[in-house]
């Protein structure tokens, strides 16, 4: 179809824009020199160094723990918050408050939490980062899901109540499935933001633990090294594989469900 083809220009431009620097980054991971900034020659040595670096490995594990944990909290609480705001209150103040953590400058939230944890004498650890990331991530999920609920037709929920479903069953079976695209988008956002968050993590993590961004930031005294590029390249490869595999799996699942 010829119609709408013009739309594909910004569409592909967006992906090109997003992946152009990624391509550069992957190329630089094969740099034989020390700089992530000037290409000297081809080498795999940084991948070797990467494999040997246990701090990066630990950091990666911690980051995944934090991102997964905070995304889980954020997805559950954020979705509930969005539904509550859309369906159970007319308060615009609450709408705004719920969005606050998403728009607060990182540094202010980070210092606030640092002070707060200090005042209540909380021993910091990974969980304190999970809580902190969960907070802003929740606001992102809530906002995205809220977007989907705005002005939505409530007759489906009514039909469900009418058929004998209580509020909980109605929420789980009717409201929630309708929200799935919003929840997926919100959760992706939450996960992505947590993965790469530095300031809040730095101030709320225990002294002996590090997330990957903390490791990387502390490593960049002279700028980035190709080792971190190698890391990025591997992360991309793994996530691409996971996504494609996931997609294959759901496809198989779907074709089964069709029978």
């Amino acid at each position: 179809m010829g119609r709408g083809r013009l739309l594909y220009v910004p569409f592909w431009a967006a992906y090109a824009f997003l992946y152009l620097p990624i391509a550069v980054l992957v190329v630089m991971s094969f740099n034989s020199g020390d700089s992530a900034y000037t290409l000297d020659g081809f080498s795999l040595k940084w991948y070797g160094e990467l494999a040997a670096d246990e701090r990066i490995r630990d950091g990666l594990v911690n980051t995944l723990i934090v991102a997964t944990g905070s995304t889980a909290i954020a997805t559950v609480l954020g979705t509930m918050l969005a539904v509550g705001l859309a369906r159970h209150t007319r308060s615009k103040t609450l709408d705004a408050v719920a969005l606050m953590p998403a728009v607060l400058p990182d540094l202010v939230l980070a210092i606030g939490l640092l002070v707060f944890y200090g005042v209540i004498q909380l021993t910091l650890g990974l969980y304190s980062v999970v809580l902190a990331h969960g907070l802003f991530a929740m606001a992102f999920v809530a906002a995205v899901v809220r977007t989907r609920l705005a002005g939505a037709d409530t007759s489906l929920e009514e039909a469900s109540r009418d058929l004998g479903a209580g509020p909980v069953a109605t929420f789980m079976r009717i409201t929630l499935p309708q929200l799935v695209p919003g929840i997926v988008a919100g959760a992706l956002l939450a996960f992505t933001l947590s993965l790469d968050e530095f300031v809040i993590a730095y101030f709320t993590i225990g002294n002996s633990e590090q997330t990957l961004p903390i490791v990387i930031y502390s490593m960049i005294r002279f700028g980035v090294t190709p080792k971190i590029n190698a890391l990025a390249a591997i992360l991309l490869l793994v996530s691409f594989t996971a996504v494609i595999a996931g997609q294959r799996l759901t496809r198989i699942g779907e074709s089964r469900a069709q029978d």
Partner: protein
Amino acid sequence: MSRSRGRRLGAFVFLSPGLTYLLVLMLVPLVLVLGTSFFQRGRFGGVVYEFTTENFGRLVDPLYLGVLGDSVRIAVLTTLLALLIGYPTAYLIARLPRKWKTVALVAIVLPFWTNFIIRIYAWIMLLNGPGLVNSGLKLLGLGPYELLYNDGAIVVGLLYSYLPLMVLPLYAAIERLDPQLREASANLGASAFTTFRKVTLPLTVPGVLTGSLFVFVPSFGNFVIPEMLGGSKSIMVGNLIRNQFLKARDWPFGSTLALALIAVLVVLLVAQAWAARRG
């Protein structure tokens, strides 16, 4: 009446976990920090607990107003560009067959599963004097241009960093649109563009507002990108706050600046909530 009781119970069930979390982990810490805006900096940093309103007086300073103006300009430009690219992208993702939707969506965020600093360095590589973009342009017989260390580079960096924050809420909003409405519009003689302007866009206003807020706010408050891609030649509101907290170690004034910024954001948030409720 039972309906309103049900409504209140629902409000409690759905809202209380999130709001409690918010109250404890955001509001309390925020009050702790922002409270210091009424105190004074210690000689060597830290806080001297003596009441003063002097910090608020320091806010009205042409220097800060200038920074504010620059920040607004840059953040607005970034937001508009993000909308311009993000909307069609989200729109097409929402129209993809189901099996490709998630893939396309994940592909939007995947670059961000690397590291912020690395991505910025990649942009430096692309944009600097002898960089890839200039080399490309040279093949076309153009350039070289000064692409780096200016406001344009800041906008590119911000756009790059926050595009997903535009695409994902838009996707969530567009995905639920009934395709028959677009059909009805086309049937009534509207071109694709008119249909977009008159039907699709108005019905996805909440998504546009959310996405715009998500892009505008962190752009406005960013301090790393102005330093790395803008070469610190111009700074944004985020730099000011960072400077006070980290460099000048003036928490009271840092808090005051943050308070001012938050006040601006709250106005935006309330406006957003108001507009989204109408949509």
